């Protein structure tokens, strides 16, 4: 598996798109910092971008890589290598190379700016960690979709829809439901609904750091317990990890049954 990982990783690190992705974050970091000089504002802007972009890029790269390397995968499958290792290796290769683009791309400008002297250092690292986790989650989801759909166009379309669903549509439905049923106690629902969307979970994790003041404005005891203690942090991180692990297990299970 490590060998597959290594080759997928270097294969991607050499691709033009990885450079573009890296350069995008690099320039974004520099622009954000040198335009407004305010690290906490930059972190908020980054939050918005990372929450939208890492899942999108993870999905696209994941699905593209799978389809583009299908024949090569077939070659590997004929070799004495365990099936699940091939897919897990590829998955890790993509996720790591994308995460590296993110971490280096943003890390360099923030280091140059002196993030270590800043009080936002912890928020910034949480942000990078979350970006990395979202990358892993969405590459894993993309792999699952690619394993289900042999038709490239169909798989690609559904992957984009999946991203759109988690990034926008889910929250739209969530908000409308809360507005429609606002005569009922919604505490548990509001918190529960975030569990089923990794982007929402990540957002909650970050705003637990950035906007805790606002979150504590709401009266519900469930909210107080969740946001007011470190329990919220640990719980959300645990769930995010589950969001990586479960799709991975599904990759292993699906790949075992699939014909190539």
């Amino acid at each position, binding site marked *: 598996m490590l060998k597959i990982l290594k080759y997928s990783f270097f294969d991607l690190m050499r691709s033009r798109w990885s450079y573009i992705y890296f350069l995008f974050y690099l320039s974004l970091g520099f622009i954000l910092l040198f335009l407004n000089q305010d690290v906490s504002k930059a972190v908020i802007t980054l939050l918005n971008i990372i929450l939208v972009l890492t899942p999108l890029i993870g999905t696209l790269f994941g699905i593209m890589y799978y389809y583009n390397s299908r024949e090569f995968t077939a*070659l590997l499958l004929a*070799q004495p290598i365990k099936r699940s290792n091939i897919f897990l290796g590829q998955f890790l290769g993509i996720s790591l190379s994308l995460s590296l683009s993110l971490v280096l791309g943003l890390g360099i400008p923030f280091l140059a700016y002196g993030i270590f002297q800043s009080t936002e250092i912890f928020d910034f690292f949480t942000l990078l960690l979350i970006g990395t986790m979202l990358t892993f989650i969405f590459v894993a989801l993309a792999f699952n979709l690619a394993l289900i759909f042999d038709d490239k166009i169909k798989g690609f379309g559904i992957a984009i829809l999946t991203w759109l669903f988690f990034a926008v549509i889910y929250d739209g439905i969530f908000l409308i439901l809360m507005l429609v049923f606002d005569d009922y106690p919604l505490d548990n629902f509001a918190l529960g609904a975030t569990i089923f969307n990794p982007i929402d979970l990540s957002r909650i994790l970050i705003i637990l750091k950035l906007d805790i003041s606002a979150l504590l404005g709401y009266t519900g005891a469930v909210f107080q317990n969740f946001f007011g203690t470190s329990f919220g942090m640990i719980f959300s991180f645990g769930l995010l990890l589950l969001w990586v692990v479960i799709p991975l297990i599904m990759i292993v299970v699906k790949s075992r049954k699939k*014909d190539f």
Partner: protein
Amino acid sequence: MIIIKDLHKKFGKVTVLKGINLDFPDKGIHTILGPNGSGKTTLIKSILGMVIPNHGSIEFNGKKILGEWEYRNEISYLPQIANFPQNLKVKELFKMINDLRPGAKNESELIAAFQLEPYLNKKLGNLSGGTAQKVNIVITFMFDSPLIILDEPTVGLDPVALIRLKKLIHEEKGKGKTILITTHIMSLVEEISDEIVFLLDGKIYFKGTIDQLKQQTDQDNLESAIANILEGSYA
């Protein structure tokens, strides 16, 4: 070497293999023939464990292969379409395959034989179909496995390369290996096969030597013998 029992495979609603029973003994060249869609590639992929059968079993050297992967150490496989990571150089691909599956032997001779030296530093994405197929052949034959599976090995090859390929196959046969080939080129079949298996609609229509086939169909060349089977089946 390979024993296949009552093998069934469906892709969605299409049944591709309908109860295949086959026994490939050690040694010799076995050619699998059949029209497009008859299940040749599916059968090969089943042996390789790439396709999971719905029913039936495959044994390799007396062991069931389902869910196993170590037995593939004994197999060299040439896939029908050669498609490699675009960003990799030919040299790196060889290195990588070596890395993934240690034990390659005559890599450099093969590269020389197929005149691949000028391409070693080119990216795989920039190779022509024929050159890619040569790379594919090198990767297959650089391992010294008792079983060699070739799925349409001649695709895109120029005559010189084709001659070298035939030579290679003969050499390997000489070493006492088992070779499975699918092809449409009848001349190749006649030239090298010890035994042919004719697949049609997911079933075995014929298994035996070429002479047996000619006798059975009462034809004196292979092409018409096969045409005869096909006409018979549609009549």
